[in-house]
């Protein structure tokens, strides 16, 4: 026979005792939990132990996200500036007004938004149609666009994605690989070949000479916007190593002095159109 109420009293004794007992709550922001050594649920996979950004902007996450929820920007392992996401959302974030709303000092955008750069849609549509909109021809279409604009404008990529029904992340990812430019260059573009043949034939000296002559480091643009210097593996120098490319013309083999001379010559006739010359001098 149970005495009615005794069970209730037993429970109340327990809760009453716990009223005074030490508490088990962790006061989170002050008291950080000790994460196990093997813990792998961290959300801050941002920097590795060497202090380097871990995200390589490889787009694999964006490509598999079915609702295109991932937007990202950064520099990938090729050094390309990549950004991916809805332009309006992204640009709103970069918008000086958004900064102002957030109470941050608003500076004019260094890299102006190019997603609204006008492109010749009819021409691009013709190019895509010429390839029959086959996905195999994506690189060919990119080549055509880069030939015309000097780089791949984002709006063109978007149009390609829409017309060819290829996922936007795929188009952007494909454009990020293989030497396409995603930013426009300013002025004359001097490209120094960095391939093994050129490097062992004295390409480093060429690069330092040109860098000295133009006063800019590789990847930079001179202050007057007339010259850009970059390196590439693409000049494919072979027998004419070491070689450089100025805009579309390839020169080689060159010595450092010859390279300086070439650039200086072009500088003098900066206003005049580049005259055609032989691509190489057989040795």
């Amino acid at each position, binding site marked *: 026979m149970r005495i009615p109420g005794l069970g209730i009293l037993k429970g*109340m004794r327990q809760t009453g005792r716990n*009223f005074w007992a030490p508490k*088990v709550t962790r006061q989170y922001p002050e008291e950080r939990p000790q994460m196990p050594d093997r813990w792998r649920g961290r959300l801050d996979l941002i920097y590795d132990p060497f202090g380097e950004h871990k995200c390589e902007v490889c787009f694999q996450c964006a490509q598999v996200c079915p609702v295109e929820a991932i937007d990202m920007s950064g520099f990938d392992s090729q050094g390309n500036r990549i950004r991916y996401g809805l332009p309006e959302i992204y640009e709103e974030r970069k918008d000086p007004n958004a900064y102002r709303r957030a109470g941050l000092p608003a500076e004019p955008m260094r890299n102006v938004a190019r997603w609204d750069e006008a492109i010749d849609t009819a021409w691009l549509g013709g190019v895509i149609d010429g390839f029959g909109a086959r996905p195999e021809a994506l690189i060919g279409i990119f080549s055509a666009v880069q030939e015309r604009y000097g780089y791949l404008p984002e709006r063109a990529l978007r149009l390609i994605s829409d017309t060819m029904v290829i996922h936007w992340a795929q188009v952007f990812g494909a454009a990020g690989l293989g030497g396409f430019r995603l930013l426009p260059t300013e002025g004359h573009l001097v490209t120094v070949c960095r391939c093994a043949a050129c490097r062992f034939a004295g390409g480093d000296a060429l690069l330092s000479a040109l860098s000295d002559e133009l006063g800019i480091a590789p990847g930079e643009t001179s202050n007057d916007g007339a010259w850009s210097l970059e390196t590439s593996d693409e000049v494919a120098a072979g027998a004419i190593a070491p070689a450089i490319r100025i805009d579309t013309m390839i020169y080689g083999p060159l010595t450092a002095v010859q390279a300086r001379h070439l650039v200086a010559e072009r500088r003098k006739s900066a206003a005049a159109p580049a005259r055609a010359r032989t691509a190489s001098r057989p040795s």
Partner: protein
Amino acid sequence: MDLLFGILRFLLATTLLLLMTIPTAFVVIQMELKVIAQMQLRYGPNRVGPWGMFQSTIHGFKFLAKEDHIPDQADRATFTLAPWMVYMAAAMSMLVMPFAPGAIAADFNIGIVYFFAVIGLSVVGLLIAGWASYNKYSLLGGLRSAAQMVSYEIPLTLSVVGVVVLGGTLNFRELIAWQQLHGWMLIWQPVGLGIFYIASLAEINRTPFDMVEADSELVAGPFTEYSGMRFGFFFFAEYVALFIMSGVMTALFFGGWLAPWPFPAQLEGFGGTLYGLLWFFLKSYMFVFVAVWLRATLPRVRVDQLMGMAWKVLLPLAMLNLLVTAGAVLVFNL
């Protein structure tokens, strides 16, 4: 002149009481948050103000800031009326609450009858809230509240009848004076106290008798469709009622404002009022604490068990108690 003074005094007292309900609700809610947390080995709210003291206050202000939503098919008139009815039932019943000597808003000669009449009004509010919401859960909750509160009113009142018979008065002040002479009613009416406590918990929908809200069954009972300050009124009324029931229990069974020792059980003048207030609040909040303690421990009883308990256990027990008390009064001529 007397009439004018009486009216002024009444206006002042009611204003003060109405103003008092909100802080009272805040304090009781804060107690509930904090005490249950401690019993569950948590700290409870501790971020807003020192020791989290203002958590319930900002809860209150949060209600003000929330959207007030009325369902399309709800009956707007009654839907808006219901929170007021419930809230006013609680606030009005405070009118006869004997806080301290000289601190009774309206010292009726039938104060106890008035109290039980007014506190019972809240059932009407809950019923129309349940009906007006156009929601099945609300309707079930409203009907439950009607059944439960009407049922428990009977043992509740009957348990007090014993006290009244013994004290020979329906006035709270006189009842406390009787207790000063004869000792607290607790000694004379232990069974009545038990019935009163259980029935009062049921009357104000506290765990383990919170059938009306029953959040794991009926979502939120009659309050399901309410939001913003309208819900806030229900919410406050519930906690004010808890305080009132504890206060009335103090007055009826625990000597009201009397100190627990005979000398000085009561002081004269303004000091006496403060002294009385101290003891009254101390005792009342102790019973609030017990109610919260119960809530931290007990599961909810089922609705049929609840009704069974009212009619099969409490009502016969209260009758028996009344019979024995009345008999004793007659025989021993107390």
